[in-house]
């Protein structure tokens, strides 16, 4: 367990820690984006590039969460985790509007897979 910084410790410490060490390093990028995006028009090539990088970053997070899963998700064998994503993606490729069905298909594969193959 990470101990509070002694000088700032007190009943309000968890709130202070949240603001300093979680809110600030997350929110700063959103604030910077407000500055950077001034005067950026909707169809500029720069924005198209920024959007491609953002999409690739999100896809990268998906891959990382599946390859190195957090917490109890590691109880699912890796092929079950991949199969769950493939099932969800297959539904979406079949019909883009079936998001609910895609979630249910993926979850069914994952929960069923853990149940059957992870003891």
């Amino acid at each position, binding site marked *: 367990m990470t101990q509070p910084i002694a000088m700032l410790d007190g009943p309000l410490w968890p709130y202070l820690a949240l603001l300093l060490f*979680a809110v600030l390093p997350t929110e700063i990028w959103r604030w910077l*984006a407000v500055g950077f995006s001034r005067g950026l028009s909707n169809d500029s090539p720069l924005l*198209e590039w920024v959007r491609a990088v953002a999409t*690739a970053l999100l896809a990268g997070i998906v*891959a990382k969460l599946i390859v190195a899963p957090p917490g109890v998700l590691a109880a699912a064998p890796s092929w079950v985790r991949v199969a769950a994503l493939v099932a969800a993606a297959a539904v979406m490729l079949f019909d883009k509007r079936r998001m609910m069905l895609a979630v249910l298909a993926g979850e069914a594969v994952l929960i069923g897979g*853990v149940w059957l193959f*992870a003891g």
Partner: protein
Amino acid sequence: MSVSADWSWQRVALAGMRDALMLPAWIVGFGLIGIGSLARDVGYPVDVAVLSTILVWAGPSQVLFFASIAAGAAWSAIVIAIAFASLRFLPMTMAILPLLRRPGQSVWQQLLLAHYVAVTAWSEGLRRLPGIAPHQRVAYFLGFANTCMAVSSLGTFAGYYLLGALPVPFAAGLLCLTPMFFLISLLAGLRHRGDAAALLLGLAFAPISARFIGGGFDLIVAGLIAGTLAFLIGRRRKPA
């Protein structure tokens, strides 16, 4: 549902709320249940867990914060890890703000709008906002995003007291909702070959990059390379 250009802002905001409640809000809400249990594990009060959902509004940052405290990481290491994991918000926010910008909008208003940028509001926003009249987009976006946030706050609160009691397959299923929903949102928002390339290259590059680049830089490097390649692929198809 579609929004008519002559609707009042209240009706537009309600349409945003309804679209959120059709599915996205529930996914984020369920996805953030785990945060509550992580906060409880480190002995932080329930209001810090719920505040983290409202003020941080980024699942990966919240997971990193509470899980790193549990692991005893240094505060400086926690800040750096969260800052790197959140770098994605820079391009994401830059991509969506031009859709929400109105003449005469103050910087404060834009900072507020930027706060709601996270995967759901971003991917759904990029997909839905272009079909809505520009003067109605802010009301729609705030209705949508605030509904997601409210449902997620309830999820975090419930998770603080409930999650430890779940059987393993269901707990794993909840944790898998996050990557699954990221992927589904990206697939729902595909517009052209460049988008598809960004998605596929991002999926492929991140694990490779994680193997060779350490210190938390791997994701950013993978995103920049994959995104730039995808951008070039998307460009080449357009008539010059």
